[in-house]
């Protein structure tokens, strides 16, 4: 009737008729998987996914060969391998998130974020005490080491990419060597050079210093990568308008690399948020809230988790899992915060 009105179409989208045989084959593979699982010694989630993947790949291959002939063999196998590869990458990530959520959720309770462990023990019933002290300790560590490493890392990256001044090659070498330093060595270094030799004793600040050693190379190298992506004709355009190099870097290069520099910061924080080893020597460990980052022992979430795991009772294990969950949520919300804050300017 409305033949003169042309409707928008998507001819490249598969019609239900084209999808049906593939869906049928997939469900066949699914039932075959369950059948095999029941008959053989294969079992568990991993076995299920593995068999389902193998069967559906085989089914897909047969279907494609029937439909498109021999030339579809390589195509189909390559497609399955790529899909399999990405599953291998994604499975552990989702597995970690899922397991943490599953185990950690039982340890969540109201006083978790309002109380410390100063009047409770790890083997007490779950409802006693909380991890406020560890949460505050971790936030102190992240903030202090970020305040130290982000400016240092970005300025080093600017020196290496923009100024290319004397010693650039040596600094580049040092940065690379630093990113290979085992984290426990960073802790030992601060212990022997700061805690033993200066008035600064084991505290949040000392812990943050050791984490900064790990964070600086990450921030530097990522910042360098993103600064190199800024096209050089933008720098030339700035210089050609009578700007000094400093002005060009500040008003053009850094804003152009802004999002990348925020990513560099996030990666740096991610690098250190879960570190435990350097804190053994530098943080001390405490069970009560310590609001002074420069004095006295403090705790951190990884420390809290480690303590809970080492005791091994059901209550302490549940506490450890909820500590991991809180740590993941904390880091994740920092990411989201930095991302939204970083891209705000481009939304108007």
């Amino acid at each position, binding site marked *: 009737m409305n033949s003169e009105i042309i409707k928008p179409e998507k001819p490249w989208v598969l019609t239900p008729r084209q999808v049906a045989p593939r869906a049928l084959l997939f469900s066949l593979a699914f039932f075959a998987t369950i059948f095999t699982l029941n008959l053989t010694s294969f079992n568990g989630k991993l076995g299920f996914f593995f068999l389902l993947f193998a069967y559906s790949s085989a089914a897909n291959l047969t279907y494609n060969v029937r439909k498109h002939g021999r030339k579809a063999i390589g195509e189909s196998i390559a497609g399955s391998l790529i899909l399999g590869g990405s599953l291998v990458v994604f499975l552990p990530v989702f597995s970690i998130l899922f397991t943490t959520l599953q185990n950690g959720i039982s340890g969540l309770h109201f006083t978790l974020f309002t109380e410390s462990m100063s009047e409770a023990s790890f083997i007490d019933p779950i409802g006693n005490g909380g991890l406020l002290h560890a949460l505050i300790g971790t936030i102190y560590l992240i903030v202090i080491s970020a305040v130290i490493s982000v400016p240092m890392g970005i300025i080093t990256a600017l020196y290496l990419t923009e100024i290319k001044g004397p010693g650039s090659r040596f600094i580049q070498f040092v940065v690379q060597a630093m990113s290979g330093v085992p984290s426990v060595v960073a802790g030992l270094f601060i212990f022997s050079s700061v805690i033993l030799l200066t008035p600064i004793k084991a505290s949040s600040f000392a812990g943050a210093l050791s984490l900064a050693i790990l964070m600086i190379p990450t921030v530097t190298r990522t910042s360098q990568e993103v600064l190199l992506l800024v*096209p050089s*004709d*933008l720098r*030339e*355009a*700035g*210089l*050609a*308008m*009578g*700007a*000094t190099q400093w*002005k*060009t870097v500040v*008003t*053009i290069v850094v*804003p*152009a690399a*802004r999002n990348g520099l925020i990513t560099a910061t996030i990666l740096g924080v991610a690098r250190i948020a879960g570190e435990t080893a350097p804190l053994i020597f530098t943080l001390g460990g405490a069970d009560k809230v310590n609001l002074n980052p420069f004095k006295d022992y403090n705790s951190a979430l990884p420390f809290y988790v480690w303590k809970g795991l080492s005791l091994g009772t059901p209550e302490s294990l549940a506490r450890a899992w909820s500590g991991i969950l809180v740590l993941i949520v904390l880091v994740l919300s920092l990411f989201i915060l930095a991302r939204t804050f970083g891209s705000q*300017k*481009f939304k*108007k």
Partner: protein
Amino acid sequence: MENPDLLEEKIMSTDPNPAASSSAKPNSLGDISATRQANRQPGNRPLGSGLEARGIHAWFGKNHVLEDVSLDFAAGTVTALIGPSGCGKSTFIRTLNRMHEFIPGAAMAGEVLLDGKDVYDPGIDVTKIRLQIGMVFQKPNPFPSMTIGENVLSGIKLAQLKVDNKDDLLEECLVRAGLWSEVKDRLGAHAGGLSGGQQQRLCIARALAVKPKVLLMDEPCSALDPGSTLRIEDTIVELAKNITIVIVTHNMQQAARVSDYTSFFLSDGGPGQMIEVGPTSQIFSRPVDQRTENYVSGRFG
């Protein structure tokens, strides 16, 4: 890495007296200035500055790319530099506003005089030179993190200049660059959303905002379609009333359309040289040098 001292020595030995060697060149500067005098309208004093290049040589590392180029750009004129790729045109104009020195391994010899003062004088503030000699590049390069309006005024911020009325300046520059009517309703939008031709006119507006006396254009239309090219040519003709323009182009029709003087560059495998310079009509109708005639008539070789 090149040893700067050695390079210096080499420069001196190749060209002990740049000024002297340039005056010995056949394309005498006297002829040009005579023509310019004839062309100049009485009472119509141009606002731009004169620019003079004397005996310019340029090197990249050990590679001698430009040999003894002397050119006089009179105030308020448009000079087109033509010639095949690799003959040193772009290198030459980059020596004029001291952009040449940003390329690693670059070296040069000779003098560039802006209103009679050498821009390579050690006591001179190089950022002031680049402020007076603006540049438009081959590829449109608006700043991606800034809006259209911010792009135009970026030079004010970069060079830390004081301006009384930014809105007036913004409008003036965009009008002069022939872009105002197209962007006046979206000055707050990002420059990346403009077409290639609009982006290039935005870059011209940006260069104009710092009030340069000379504008260097390095193949400004090579990435643009014919329509945008014509618009930019109109802009160039309009701008030439107030400032001195040097334009590198591969498009000979463009050189013929927009320029008062044309200079032909050529490299015979060695360093690039300036073969001939003269009023544009003369270069295209009765050039002195056979090589120029071959090039402008399309019988190149």
